[in-house]
């Protein structure tokens, strides 16, 4: 059994309580960035250079979805010896007006999804290295 759990990537999402994605918002124009932006705002009409760290909305609506019936190539790290197909969804966050791609929560497939359906953010194990569980954000269908 893994003794510790860490995010698979640093600074992209929180892992305790109700998890959420971490982004930045330009203090000049209000444009939101995920993953976090730094340095310069990418809005061509804005010269902003400062950003607030923000937590993104925990729920959104499915923009589109698919699955991976074949094992992806490296640097994907297979979590098990035989490939278990998993679903992916691109999810639109209304307030931030951004679409974010993620895997879909374990146990859910394309039959559980449709364009416009509501999903919420969860954090689940992605792979394990040397007894350390590496966690990733995922989209979980809400309700039936």
């Amino acid at each position, binding site marked *: 059994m893994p003794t510790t759990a860490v995010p698979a990537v640093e600074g992209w999402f929180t892992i305790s309580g109700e998890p959420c994605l971490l982004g930045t918002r330009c203090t000049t*124009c209000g444009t939101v960035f995920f993953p976090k932006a730094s340095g310069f705002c990418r809005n061509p*009409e804005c010269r902003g250079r400062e950003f607030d760290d923000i937590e993104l909305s925990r729920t959104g609506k499915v923009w589109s979805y698919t699955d*991976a*019936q074949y094992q992806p190539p*490296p640097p994907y790290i297979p979590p098990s010896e035989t490939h278990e197909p998993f679903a*992916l969804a691109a999810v639109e966050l209304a307030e931030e007006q951004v679409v974010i791609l*993620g895997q879909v929560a374990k146990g859910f497939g394309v039959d559980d999804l449709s364009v416009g359906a509501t999903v919420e953010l969860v954090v689940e194990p992605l792979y394990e290295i040397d007894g350390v569980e590496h966690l990733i954000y995922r989209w979980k269908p809400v309700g039936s």
Partner: protein
Amino acid sequence: MTAPASVAVLGVGMHAWGKWGRPFHEYGVTAALAALDDAGVSWGDVQFVAGGETVRNGYPGYVAASTITQALGWNGARVASCYAACASGVTALDAARSRILAGLCDVALVVGADTTPKGFLAPVAGERWDDPDWLRFRLLGATNPTYFALYARRRMDLYGATDADFAKVKVKNAKHGLHNPNARYRKEVTEEEVLASPMVADPLRLLEICATSDGAAAVVLTSMDYARKHATSPVRIRAVSTVTPRFPNTVTEMPNFATDSAAALAPPELTFRDSIAAGAYEEAGIGPDELSLAEVYDLSTALELDWYENIGLCKPGEAEKLLIDGDTTIGGRIPVNPSGGLACFGEAVPAQAIAQVCEIAWQLRGQAEGRQVEGANAGITVNQGLFGHGSSVLLTT
């Protein structure tokens, strides 16, 4: 802005697509020599060589133009190697065209060649935590077909497209490419066979996603003055578009995790994919109604249908009807991918956008044996690559 002067496509050539297991530059030399012979131009007369880079073959691939120039025998030509993902070949083409239009040279060779591994295209090795193309595999297991499938699923949920509609694209393209000597797959398939092939990324099946191939394509571009001394009526390039997206790009694009946010600035009128061909139409002063044919980047069956709408052949949601009515089949109103497209070729990244130009040139000359679009006098190519790249070339007789 007035329409720019034309440059001539004096020669075109390819190395057949397949899985040949040879160094990429060997294919490039074969294609280059074929294009030079087709043009009736000797290698020593080439003043500029532009190459599409391949990232899979180490430094020789990064400096593709000089690698192929050296293989042909150093001749002192100036070189440029261009990387723009799937649009690399046309970025090279545009460099050559610009030099000719600027009066800096008369004769240029444009060449792209690749040798590819089996299976999914994957990023080059090594850990790169600041590279979205590496991260999408590590964190999401998101392959290229993942993104193609997102677009396909949206056609189904928004427009009511069906598995059978998508399969019909493959059936059409397989028939088109049947007699194309440079195509890798020359075999008719039925709708049932497509639908019986294994699901890769729902709703896309194995026979609906383009393979990765070895292959090469080359074009000899010249000034119109030079061309008139060598050919009676050379095919002309009227416009080249290599536009980037406009912020905010609100479509999920490979290899990104997220779209731009539209929270502060409204999205542009045209999506990125719409803007690629629009750039060529605007530059040439020629519209989609004047086209005889189109070569579009059918990375998947469903994506070909998206392109019909992106290049203005029909309104959003009407592509399935255009296909089923036979409009985009050879003999129809506006044949799409008479070459057989990526469905019959598989993708050889730095060569593919040049191959699209080769096909239009053969069609406009009336030399597309077994797949000729009768009376073709104007054609467009269009493609899209990673990292905000895309290309479109508009050619006429």
